[in-house]
């Protein structure tokens, strides 16, 4: 494992279970709400992944909220970078800025294709792939620069996103190995609702020897579940859970009460799932997407 810069990676290295929250920048005008959510997580999480343009939509850049969380809230943000919209120059301009802002942790993913999102006529870039971007960040971190000679940054821990295609397990193992060899210190899954699925991925990651953090995406409505399914085929919440959300949605109670009830249903799901995850060999943490609810108390 490369040099450690962030406390969450230090904890993973020590074999401790980490609790991460993920906040999606989902506004085109303001980050106030996002920072409020982040504030509510201050004492519950080890780190916050700040993801950008979730589901290939157009929102504010995620560098500023990362910086604000670090400076104002003393949280440890994980800056999320993907390869869809920017070539290597654009990506590294952001990464150098991240370095200057004192960010220490970057998570890399390929990115959802432009045609899956709102602005389908935008050009998909993918100048580099996730493995190449991890390699390039590692090289810059080690002072090697990349062609053109970018100055040395303060050093980053690098995470990567892991897929869960079960049709060709050896191919998935190859991808895990490549990401690890490139310089990833930990892997984060796409949204998962069943511990069995987490176990299958953990079998692969522990074979290769890289910590795995499992993502749980709370569902605030049936519509959210449907839109999530459009970008992540395997992110399917359990049917009984969805039925309960549906019942609450259709029920006679006020919107505020409904929200609270749905929040509680999610809390129950998360509690059970996290307890199970903690028993799985190779699962080193959970990442709970916390954008949709004002407060989801992350289980300790």
């Amino acid at each position: 494992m490369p040099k450690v810069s962030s406390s969450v990676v230090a904890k993973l290295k020590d074999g401790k279970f980490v609790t991460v929250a993920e906040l999606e920048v989902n506004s085109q005008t303001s980050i106030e709400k996002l920072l409020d959510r982040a504030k509510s997580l201050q004492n519950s999480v080890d780190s916050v992944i700040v993801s950008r343009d979730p589901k290939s939509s157009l929102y504010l850049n995620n560098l500023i909220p990362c910086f604000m969380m670090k400076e104002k809230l003393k949280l440890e943000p994980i800056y999320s970078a993907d390869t869809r919209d920017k070539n290597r120059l654009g990506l590294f301009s952001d990464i150098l800025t991240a370095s200057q802002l004192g960010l220490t942790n970057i998570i890399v993913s390929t990115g959802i294709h432009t045609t899956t999102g709102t602005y389908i006529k935008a050009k998909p870039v993918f100048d580099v792939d996730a493995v190449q971007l991890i390699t390039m960040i590692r090289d810059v971190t080690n002072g090697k620069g990349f062609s053109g000679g970018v100055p040395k940054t303060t050093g980053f821990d690098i995470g990567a996103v892991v897929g869960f295609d079960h049709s060709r397990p050896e191919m998935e193992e190859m991808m895990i190995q490549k990401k690890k060899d490139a310089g990833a210190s930990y892997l984060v899954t796409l949204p998962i609702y069943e511990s069995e699925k987490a176990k299958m991925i953990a079998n692969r990651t522990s074979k290769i020897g890289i910590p795995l953090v499992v993502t749980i995406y709370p569902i605030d409505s049936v519509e959210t579940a449907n839109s999530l399914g459009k970008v992540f085929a395997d992110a399917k919440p359990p049917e009984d859970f969805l039925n309960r959300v549906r019942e609450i949605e259709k029920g006679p109670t006020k919107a505020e009460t409904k929200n609270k009830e749905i929040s509680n249903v999610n809390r129950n799901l998360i509690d059970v799932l996290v307890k199970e995850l903690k028993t799985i060999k190779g699962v080193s943490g959970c990442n709970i997407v916390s954008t949709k609810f004002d407060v989801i108390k992350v289980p300790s």
Partner: protein
Amino acid sequence: MIITVQKPLEEIMKMLEGYDKIVIIGCNTCAALCQTGGEEEIKEIVEKLKDEKQIMGTIAVETPCDVRISKRDLRALNKQIEEADAILAMACGVGVQSIADLTKKNVVPALDTKFLGMVERVGRFYERCRMCGSCTLFDTGGICAISRCPKGLLNGPCETVSNGKCEVGGWKDDCVWALIWDRVNQLGRVDSLKKYQPERDGSLKATLGELVWTE
């Protein structure tokens, strides 16, 4: 094979507005096979235009993209081309430009050029090459990841592949990396996929392509 489709007639008519005397030039190779610019398609477009335009002459050039062939074949229509207000070119983008260079006339493209494709049979054309200038087909078992993966990934599939299917289009089409994996596995060369593939050289396609033999 350069795969083309015919533009909607309304679009063609709009470009032809104000031009009365028209020469129509087709392509007897790629566009003929795509049924967008061969002899038959020229006849069809003549039928559609003849009431509104004066068709001065028509020809399906063997390969309009080859300046030498175009020059030779177009000699037969020199007079008509000279008198024409515009030329309707039923060829790919390269053909259109070669005709424009040769005739110095207003040239209206009748086709949209889609891709460099493999022909399974007439009417079934599949993009198989993006002309990236840096072929990795040996490593990938003869299946092109640049053209066939919507993200053009070189090191393997992205995270959203599910059951061997691609996110783009809603997990109906095969993920090309699943196809590559199966092919290379069958060839007993999976190790070639495990090698790190460095980032592509963007400069290869950053400027106008030009290949001039020198001694």
